[in-house]
């Protein structure tokens, strides 16, 4: 139908448009089948009470009203926001620090870059399993090492605060490599002349960092912050494997709680409702983030 509307346009333009649609069609089909359709179905299932097998019962907003009085849901929501608020800025700072170190001619630079990037290519499940053994408070290597220097033992699994700390440490270890690579690219994109000019004006290295490096990393930082927030709101595999949300609900986040409800407890509708809340929350947070970054730097938007 779109073809008839563009009757007036020259044939070459029409062909170009068609080629464009053809080129994006595989992407559109995959997006439609594996992203859009499941998203719509999640909304539909969230209005049902169903175990997945057997008949489903329509409950309207029943699952959502149940969420309001569910203490574990609120705990997961707070944990999710807190987890993002801690891991995103720390991840950015750590990524930038490592990138600045490895941007200079340090010893074994390429080897170090590879070592920092390696966790990014390890699957989350494998990283979680490794961490599970490392942080086991009975037999784990972390407490073993702390013991050698007279510290600990730390209750990585049974203390709520330490369990969350282990989750944050694991997340940073897995994520720092990606942030480092993006920052390295951005650092190399800052013209050398800016540093030379500021040096001529008498700027010291702290002033150079503040007035040359940081402004030059704006776009990369906005990208990493948005991407980091998305990832941390969607956090699932690392936490699910490492702590299973425990002890108690200390490390339960919306992703793990939705999975537990939908699959372990077979409450597909309730799990879907948690998924919908997570989705809406992410949209709100990202909208605010986009709005702030546009105001800050209009021409970058």
């Amino acid at each position, binding site marked *: 139908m779109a*073809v008839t509307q563009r009757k007036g346009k020259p044939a070459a333009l*029409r062909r170009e448009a*068609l080629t464009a649609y*053809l080129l994006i*069609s595989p992407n559109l*089909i995959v997006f439609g*089948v594996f992203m859009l359709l499941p998203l719509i179905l999640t909304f539909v299932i969230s209005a049902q009470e169903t*175990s*997945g*097998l*057997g008949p489903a019962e329509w409950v309207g907003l029943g699952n959502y009203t149940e969420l309001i009085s569910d203490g*574990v849901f609120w705990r997961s929501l707070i944990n999710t926001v807190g987890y993002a608020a801690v891991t995103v800025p720390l991840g950015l700072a750590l990524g930038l620090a490592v990138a600045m170190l490895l941007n200079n001619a340090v010893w074994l630079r390429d080897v170090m870059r590879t070592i920092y990037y390696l966790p990014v290519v390890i699957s989350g499940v494998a990283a979680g399993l490794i961490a599970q053994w490392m942080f*086991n*408070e*009975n*037999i784990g290597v972390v*407490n073993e090492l702390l013991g050698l220097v007279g510290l600990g*033992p730390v*209750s*990585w*699994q*049974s*203390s*709520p605060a330490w369990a969350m700390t282990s989750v944050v440490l694991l997340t940073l270890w897995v994520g720092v490599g990606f942030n480092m690579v993006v920052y390295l690219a951005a650092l190399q994109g800052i013209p050398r002349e800016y540093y030379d000019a500021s040096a001529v004006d008498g700027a010291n290295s702290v002033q150079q960092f503040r007035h040359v490096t940081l402004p030059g990393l704006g776009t990369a930082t906005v990208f990493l912050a948005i991407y980091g927030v998305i990832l941390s709101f969607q956090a699932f595999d690392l936490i699910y494997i490492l*702590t*299973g*949300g*425990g*002890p*108690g*609900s*200390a490390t339960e986040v919306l992703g793990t709680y939705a999975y*537990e409800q939908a*699959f*372990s*407890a*077979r409450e597909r509708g309730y799990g879907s409702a948690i998924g919908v809340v997570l989705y809406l929350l992410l949209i709100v947070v990202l909208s605010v983030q986009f709005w702030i970054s546009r105001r800050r730097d209009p021409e970058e938007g």
Partner: protein
Amino acid sequence: MNQLTRRQFLAAAGGTGAALWLGACGGGSSGSSDPMKGTLEFVTWGGPAEIKAFEAIISDFEDQNPGARIRLQETPFNEVRQTVDSSLEAEQGPDLFRVTYTDFGFYAASNVLIDLSEYLPSDFSNVFTEGLRAAVEFEGAPYGVPHHTDVSAIVYNKDLFQAAGIGALPDRLEDAWSWDEFLDVSRRLRDAQTGNRTAFGMNWQLAGAFRWLNWLYAAGGSLYNSDATRTTVDSPEARKTLDMFKTWFEEDLCPDNTSLKGSYVDLIFPAQTIAMISAGSFLVPTLEADITRFEYGTTYLPQDVGMSTDLGGNAVVATQQTEKPELAAKFLEFLVNQKNMKRFCEATNLLPTRNDLVEQKLDYEIRPDIMPVFVDQSTTITPAYTRAVTVPDFTQVNNAFVDQLESFIVGDQSPEATLGNIAQEATDVVRD
């Protein structure tokens, strides 16, 4: 027109590709129109010894039934439920799958399993012990075969017991420790040890949460009344049981990280940081492989006013989505005939479910010396316990155990609230 044709071509090509691809993803039976020929998909989990035993039995079945093939699809235990559920939801379910007795009720009530009495002689299930026959029945009909059972007992580290000066352990069921004796032994073990070591680890993590009932039933409590229509969990006996659990953690008899969402105790035990654990006999092959530096033995679960242990083990079921129900039923019958059940149990340290094998002494391949304790302990499974843990949707009750007992042990939830919340879920399940 030309453009539309190209578009149609693309749509058709995409559709065909997707259909082919989805078809390739699907499981399920296939093959000739002969009902006794074709390939069946069998989803299971298992340790190396169990998988090997399954493969040997499958190989014999295929030899005796030319044209029949059983494809074993091995899935980790933690993922098997999701794998089976989602494939059944997508109408791509396996022909056969292994299922715990506590999860059986859900599938039976969801109407996805085959009533085996339609395909097998009407008296075929009479060979099984009464309790386990009941465990795979739904509304009076058999919807699976009880493949084996398994119970918890105490597995202990002989070296650490010796170091604590604890020599003689109960070697007859009736001499099992009382709860007080158990606490006394645990305290002596704790005091005798150095470093980050504790006395006891309980095997109640996640899907095993229901094993707290071993202690509740020993104390004379129960989850449901005798016909499982009303919960009886909120009781003085249950409060006494929770007191016991609290003591373990408050007095550092149990490692802090072995709560219900914590670490599996059988993974910690080989590192010698726990002196004894509650464990099922199915773990013996793995423990035997992992434990190299010390001697270990077995004794009975402590007794209070009574004795109890859990209904472990698994059934095997056939789904309505199979195209070869006769063949699936025939395989199930073959899997649990006397010879095959005997060899499976002997190779995997599991307990049989056939009357003619329960009476016999099996020749276990691994650590036959410690198996009599499990065999004796299995006599403390009661019909009331079995009925309670096989109500449909017991999975939801088990999840409530995980959440509520975790909140009680790790958090500061009161025993009253803990039992109240468990009672609520237990009631919801039988009322539905």
